């Protein structure tokens, strides 16, 4: 089992969600984060003061999947999230040792889906 963490552009969330649905990846957890990367944000200006915009709004997806779904998931995300411009984001894959479904007490790869 793997835990896939993806950092994407916020306005790509809808498309990524759709693409994941298509790929039958239904379960995920989403949160707001701020990214600091190569991308220079659109500079914000307040009374003439430029905000370097070095922290840019991003969305983080966390998806726990069985090993055989890893590639599908990554492809789906990459496809939908890609614009070709800096700031598109990253996908990280971590090893997931164990997984429990609280409701049923199931564990392992049964619990994940």
């Amino acid at each position, binding site marked *: 089992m793997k835990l896939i963490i993806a950092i994407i552009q916020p306005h790509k969330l809808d498309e990524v969600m759709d693409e994941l649905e298509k790929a039958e990846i239904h379960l995920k957890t989403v949160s707001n984060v701020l990214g600091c990367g190569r991308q220079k944000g659109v500079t914000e200006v307040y009374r003439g003061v430029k905000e370097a915009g070095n*922290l840019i709004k991003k969305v983080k997806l966390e998806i726990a999947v069985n090993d055989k779904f890893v590639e599908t998931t990554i492809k789906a995300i990459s496809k939908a999230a890609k614009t070709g411009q800096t700031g598109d984001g990253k996908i990280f894959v971590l090893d997931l040792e164990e997984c429990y479904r609280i409701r049923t007490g199931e564990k392992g790869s049964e619990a994940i889906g």
Partner: protein
Amino acid sequence: MKKILMILTILTGLFATGWLLAEEPAATPAVCGVAAEPAPAAINTGDTAWILMSTALVMMMTAPGLAMFYGGLVRRKNVLSTMMQSFFLLGLISVQWILWGYSLSFGPDIGHFIGSLKWFALSGVGSAPNPDYAGTIPHNLFMIYQMMFAVITPALITGAFAERIKFSTFAVFSLLWATLVYDPVCHWVWGTGGWLKTMGALDFAGGTVVHISSGISALVFALMIGKRKNYPARPVAPHNMVFTLLGAALLWFGWFGFNAGSALGANELAVTAFIATNTAAATAALVWLFLDWLVIGKPTALGGASGAVAGLVAVTPAAGFVTPMGALGIGILVALVCYLFVSVLKHKFGYDDSLDAFGVHGVGGTVGALATGLFATKMVNAAGNNGLFYGNASLLWTQAIGVIATMAYAAAVTFVLLKILDKVMGLRVKEEEELIGLDITQHKETAYTLVD
């Protein structure tokens, strides 16, 4: 570069106008001077106090009232752009009105269709009451009171194109629309000599002038600019309902200035209008909540707010002509009809009137204008007329003409304007800008920070 030149030209123009006219009072000594002029008709301080206050209230309806109401309904990334449209119009139309808007609307009649430019830059609009419009308050108080109506009307339209409009196009459109639609329609209905006024159409505080004109234009705009990306597949939940409720409550509060102020004095008529206003708003809010309860199982806060605003819209043309019970009837009626439009028909037709500018103001204004033809009674206001329920069917007919004429005219001009602007400047932002949000792409700002 072109843009910069354009702006510089405008700035210089404004400057020049300022300077030039600063010299002008010599030409109109009698009108601006308070002390210089032996006031012929006495000004009533109580009436003046109430209209001063009403003017401030109607100003407040646009910003913060409408700005908060609309701002809460859009997404986080578009809230500043939405609020700024209202705020910007407060600036833009205030200046337009002083320079030529008031003159076109209320100035000496030209062919029952529009006012002349004789009162350009308020020349001739002084402290002495103008008995054609209001005999007990300064003429220029009537002018600035009416200004606030001219300000809020285009602001209502902004609900139709929220979250995708180009700011520059919006600015140009608003200026043209105010001049080519609002000012003439206002003249028809309220200007001395206006053809609808002459015909006897009743519009106490602007059901036709304000709500129908803006509502139908909003519909045309929504159709021509097209739907927001992903609409209606991904519905947009209001990003901050507290702001929307705050805005709705401020609108209600300000509407007392709008309707009761339209009595143009602190008199019995003002009280009548005040009561009708509150009653219709309250009733429509309740009915909308009941409908929510029936249809979706729970009363919603947005439903209550929408109902209240719909009630306020519908009672606007009627406020000075109906009994409290008439207002109650109007409240029930408008809630039923607007609920149908906003919650059902809009989705059937599939246009994206994003914040229901047409569904609430266009539809509600029409209900109100026609209901005035039903519920109006001379017992409430001898200067008014009797409606169908008081035995006079002709008023309903007159009202209908007013509605249709305004709709046809406003829709046609808006259509032509948008066709041209679409060619010249483009209506929408780029798709990517829309996805990223208008705040950052159109204004280089974001409304909220994420870390301290």
